């Protein structure tokens, strides 16, 4: 199953600070619900993420890297590839992140192309949008917590 997810959120912090945080893979990973970053460099990270999609619970183990990163324009493209444990199929994602100033804060635009195979695709397709919206909500909350002292 291939799907496109689109989210925007705003945080009450200037673009530079937001960019610094969002490109710190270890910190960002820590904010994603269910995710653990096991190692991270400037450009790459490995880790795992546990998600529950309706009746299916799946842990993806994988790696990701910056394919593009423009610190001036605040635009980044990240690719990730995860293998579902227990034979549950693979997931791959391409995330395009773009930050824009908005008032005194920052508006972040996140476009994700997601490919999922196996049981999560079979049973999870009906709930994918809802689940991702919810996860992003928690993610933003965490990011905001880190940006506003």
């Amino acid at each position, binding site marked *: *199953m291939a799907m496109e997810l689109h989210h925007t959120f705003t945080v009450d912090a200037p673009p530079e600070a937001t960019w610094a945080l969002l490109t710190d893979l270890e910190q960002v990973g820590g904010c994603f619900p269910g995710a653990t970053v096991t190692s991270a460099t400037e450009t790459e990270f490995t880790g795992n993420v546990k998600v529950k999609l309706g009746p299916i619970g799946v842990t993806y183990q994988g790696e990701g890297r910056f394919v593009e990163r423009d610190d001036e324009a605040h635009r980044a493209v990240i690719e990730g590839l995860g293998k579902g444990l227990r034979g549950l199929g693979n997931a791959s994602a391409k995330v395009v992140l773009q930050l824009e100033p908005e008032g005194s804060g920052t508006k972040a635009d996140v476009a994700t192309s997601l490919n999922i*195979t196996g049981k999560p695709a079979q049973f999870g397709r009906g709930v994918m949008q809802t689940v991702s919206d919810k996860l992003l909500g928690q993610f933003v909350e965490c990011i905001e917590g880190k940006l506003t002292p």
Partner: protein
Amino acid sequence: MTAVDDRPQAASTHEVGRDRRRKEDQRLITGRTKWTDNLVLPGMLHLAMVRSPLAHARITGIDATAAREAPGVIAVLTGEDVKDLQGSLPCAWPITEDQKAPPHPAIAVDRVAFSGEVVAVVAARSSAAARDAAELVDVDYEDLPAALELRASAQDETLAHPDLGTNRSATWVFDSAEAGTGSDVEDAIAEADVVVEREFRQQRLIPAFMEPRSTVVDPTGEQFVMWSATQVPHILRLMLAMTLGVDEGKIRVIAPDVGGGFGGKLQVTPEEIITFLVARHTGKPCKWTETRSESLLSAHHGRDQWQKLTLAAKADGTVTGLKVELLADMGAYLGLVTPGVPILGAFMYNSIYKFPAYHFSCTNVFTNKTWTDAYRGAGRPEATFAIERIMDELALELGRDPMEVREQNWITHEEFPFTTVCGLEYDSGNYEAATERAKELFGYDELRAEQQRRRESGDRVQLGLGISTFTEMCGLAPSRVLGSLNYGAGGWEHASVRMLPTGKVEVITGSSAHGQGHETAWSQIVADQLGVPFEDVEVLHGDTQISHKGLDTYGSRSLVVGGQAVINAAKKVIEKAKPLAAYQLEANVDDLEFSDGKFTVKGAGADQEGVGLAGLALAVFAAHDLPDGMEPSLDADATFDPVNFSFPHGTHLCAMEVDTETGATTMRSYVCVDDIGNVVNPLIVEGQVHGGLVQGIAQALWEEAVYDDQGTLVSGSFVDYTLPTTADTITFVTDRTTSPATSNDLGVKGVGEAGCIASTPAVVNAVLDAIRQFGVKDIVMPCTPERVWRAIQDGTAGAMSETAGAAAGHFAEGEPNQDPPGTGAAPAAGTTQEGGQA
């Protein structure tokens, strides 16, 4: 009723024709019986399969360490472990000399070609332990592009098997001009007044039998014993021997009670091979039973074709030619009869109509999906659907009643036996009689009038009438014909009749019942043949050590082929008993006659006692006083090879109501009048017809195997694969007309697939008939409310009449958000559109 059966009656018929309750049902219904999964053997291990979640990928590594160390695990085998032992799964029907096919491993070795393919197997002390450990097998895959959509795959856009170099497996052609059975179809098309060309889609279906597949293999003892939920124990035994290189004599296959198959268990499965291999590897009895998800995902699927038909006709409606071009989706591999399934339909597109010219071609195409194979009707439902849909289209083109156009073109009852443009000889039939009865039961004219009223009043709920005047070829099959089609086996059937000393009778049949009620029907037949009570007949089947020879059950063959073998064996018993009867009666053999289980002397009066078969059986058992040279046995075997197919036919009429606002469809009435020749047990026939109807209606309205763009089966549970229940159906009106078959003693024709073959086009024709006035030309099956609604929307983008002024205030000019006049206007009804190609 409609034809005279002037052949002599072989025996008095007390049992044949009775609606006997099925003798097997008590044990089946109460569960006091043996299904494969009920078997428990000492020291038995349980298997769980590790399956690929990807449609097409290279296997780059398998780490089974954690699985091997898990509690209760005895063995984990991968493709690498068995690659030199597993052989290649058999395909018994290579349709052309140059057919291309990849090897078909039971366990994938270095590449998987569909989502659900087995990559490893775990054997453990319990089923739960095996499943838990299967999840610990860590498989690394490297994704490969997957060939998924049939038409794109036929163009080789992506290769399902890169080593083959193409997705096209074979192209099979029949041409009536080349075969000398008819004229040239291209000439017919060139000279036609009317040419109707349509393309239809046969969606992919899943057989969805009730009992999931299960296999047990016991490797202890002199023979390997395999119990399997299969339709084909005899074929399975032979194929196991040929695939694994084990002596056939060292393999015994048992199909205990089997809970349905519909063609879905006409297969030699990877899991059967794997269970055998693991049992041999561990030296322990092993059992594998699938989950419903595994069944939907990996048991073979059915249908899945694109059908392009070109029909040529004269202006007066007389058909002059038919050209059929098919693309058939094989899925990832060729199973037992995969490539032959569309070919079984090749001779049926002309159906009951007198086409003078015919051309059929089918290209079989590989994709990275579960492989397809036989599913109830196998090729003939596809043919019937297409021809019955296009006959409606022809009527539409001519502006005539669809029944009238059919009647103009069908074979009339005086014309039987009739040799078709495919060279088949239809032995008997009466399409007029079946149609007349069906129209009467349906109230055809009255419903047409109601349809007209509803159209005129603009009723929200519109009514449509659908017709299917079908025939099919079944009773598979004359061995010579199968040989000419390059099929790997014959089509005969075997039976034995054993006379026990107590006068009871054992019947051994090579047919392998899996819900059809053979035990009852065969008992009725033998009771009449031998004049013994129904209760005294015991029918044995499904164990290759008891029934050592047979070709099993599929293609509506059991009664017309297997039943005839039983009759032939019973007749031999009577012949063998005759010398002893003559000896006891002190009469000449030629002066004896046999009826009601008794030999009597011709002309010796009605009050003579005669000698009964039971008494003779006891005398033979004792063998104290037999005629000189007589072998002390009355038992007899027979193998029957049919000379022709059986051609049941019938007229099915369906009335559908369509809610034009929601697209919801409701079946109002369904009438079918089938001509299946004489009937052994009307109750069993009724069951077959009802079940078949529901399966065919389900294709029209509900069922579809859906894959996503990654090749994941998303309709892999009964939540998404919408199999109907009785709550979804209505009470059917069924009746029969009778034109006895001339190809067997009973005058019977196969009925196992008839309902499923006939009903689909009747329903779709009815749905379309209800909403054609909206400009709808086709709806791709299944006709779900969404597709019907979209078809209506796409057809007219609105209602067929102007919205009443008072209700349309918000559309008035000057109201906010109104498009400029004209841009949103509805196109006129009849505008060409891609109606409902959802």
